[in-house]
């Protein structure tokens, strides 16, 4: 009994470690390649560790494209969108969860319906809207369409707010508190875990967003990282794998750091979003 349990656990861990290795190897290979010299990269007998570790690829990356500028663009755009979505989607969620008004259920259905629409369907018409607003090739094109909230965030926050018992607000209402006070002072602090989930999801989604920035931005200095490195890959340096892996490493690293710091919230949040 005891021995069979130990063997079972051993088998399980061996399988899981093998799986974890498969999950990690591409990342390790990416980082390793980014520190290798071209002669080391284009070798028929590659080694895991660079034979002569070098920063050549990183130096070239910064000279080929305005990488630092694109990094700051990505960070700025992502943070503004995340803050906007947290504020405006939580406001919308409060209205759906706590206020009665004509057409509420119909409007909520429209919100849900927009969740089913693939991004590519709205791509060109949304581009036309942005063009008519005169936003093409500006930060507004990147920020504007997303900063006013997303249906997904509003939906998720509404589901959380519905689980909060209404008695908590009754006392505040008797004391004469208005809806802004109740929203800001009572509801928002109580949905903090949900805000964390929405914030992390939005951060990951907009840090990695590719198609929309590809369409609305064409000047090198306004590009975000994904568009920057994809452009590098399809350009004349597209076969310099060391440089491409250096770019990939620097694009992926901030997210990995954020994820590892908050992984408990992320994984719990995903689990909750699936059960709702």
């Amino acid at each position: 009994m005891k021995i069979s349990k130990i063997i079972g656990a051993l088998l399980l861990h061996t399988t899981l470690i093998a799986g974890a290795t498969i999950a990690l190897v591409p990342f390790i290979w990416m980082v390793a390649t980014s520190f290798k010299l071209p002669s080391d990269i284009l070798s028929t007998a590659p080694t895991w560790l660079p034979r002569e570790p070098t920063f050549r690829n990183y130096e070239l990356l910064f000279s080929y494209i305005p990488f630092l500028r694109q990094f700051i663009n990505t960070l700025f755009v992502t943070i503004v969108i995340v803050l906007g979505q947290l504020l405006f989607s939580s406001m919308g969620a409060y209205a759906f969860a706590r206020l009665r008004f004509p057409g509420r259920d119909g409007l909520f259905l429209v919100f849900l319906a927009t969740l089913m629409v693939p991004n590519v369907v709205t791509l060109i018409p949304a581009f036309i809207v942005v063009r008519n607003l005169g936003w093409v090739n500006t930060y507004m094109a990147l920020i504007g369409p997303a900063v006013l909230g997303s249906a997904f965030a509003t939906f998720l926050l509404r589901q959380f707010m519905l689980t909060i018992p209404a008695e908590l607000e009754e006392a505040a209402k008797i004391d004469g508190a208005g809806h802004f006070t109740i929203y800001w002072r009572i509801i928002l602090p109580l949905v903090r875990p949900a805000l964390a989930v929405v914030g992390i999801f939005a951060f990951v989604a907009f840090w990695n967003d590719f198609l929309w920035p590809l369409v609305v931005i064409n000047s090198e200095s306004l590009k975000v990282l994904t568009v920057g490195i994809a452009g590098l890959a399809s350009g004349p340096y597209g076969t310099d794998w060391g440089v491409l892996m250096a770019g990939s490493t620097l694009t992926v690293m901030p997210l990995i750091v954020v994820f590892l710091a908050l992984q408990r919230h992320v994984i719990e949040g995903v689990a909750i979003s699936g059960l709702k």
Partner: protein
Amino acid sequence: MTATDTTSATAWRPSRRRSRERLRESLYAAVFLAPNVLGIGLFVVVPVIAGLAISFTNWDLLGEASWIGIDNYVALWSDALFWTSLRNTLFYTVLVIPGGLILSLLLALGLSGKMRGIRFYQAIFFLPYVSSTVAIALVWKWIYNPDYGVLNVFLRGVGLPAPNWLGDPTLALVSIAIVSIWQTAGYNMVLFVAGLRAIPKHYYEAARIDGAGPITIFFKITLPLLMPTIFFVSATSLIASFQVFNLVFVMTKGGRAIPPASMCSTFGRTGFRSSKWGTHRQWPTSFS
């Protein structure tokens, strides 16, 4: 006189107060919802409707538009590229969904019990999901490189054939499907772990007392009770595989080098370069 006054007043006042309260609440709702409605309306709802309308015109995004009825759809129907891309998408979907579902369910079953290091494994399996698809696509393109890619170097080392993973159209779809499964398995696994934990423990105890073996328990209890999660994961995977764009775009040069793996890549390939936007506009719409 006064008596009738008070009765009518009491009957009238609360309803007026209620209707004023209703109006106040509606006004608050309008303020709270204004940013959401503006953003989602202007950048999702209007584009969906406008896209549908444009698909019945010959608008090229710059000149005059005139109504041409279903001509675009007729042209699409007889376009070989459209059928190729549809076939590719279906093939890709058939690869990704069962493969991804089974793999993530197995991972979840391995991690659903009480054991040490669950959080550690979950974090590692989840890592590919949070990583930028564009960066991931570049890394895998390098791994798949026919001459110097680590995969082929390894295969040659053990005496196996080293194919051109992204060169041959059919094989490229398989290669991209592998990357997609690798990237999303951890996410689906977390959903499955949550689904497994939601199954009440006493069902298992009862089954065990009745003498059911682990395989019977899996097929008679775990699987039926996990159906909502399986449905959710399948639906989200299906939507994602029909929308696959970034992986194909980056790994196969925008789908130009090989036939595109999905409608969306075809659309990306021709739509941006075509003068007849109306023609290509409705491809995704007709399948959403």
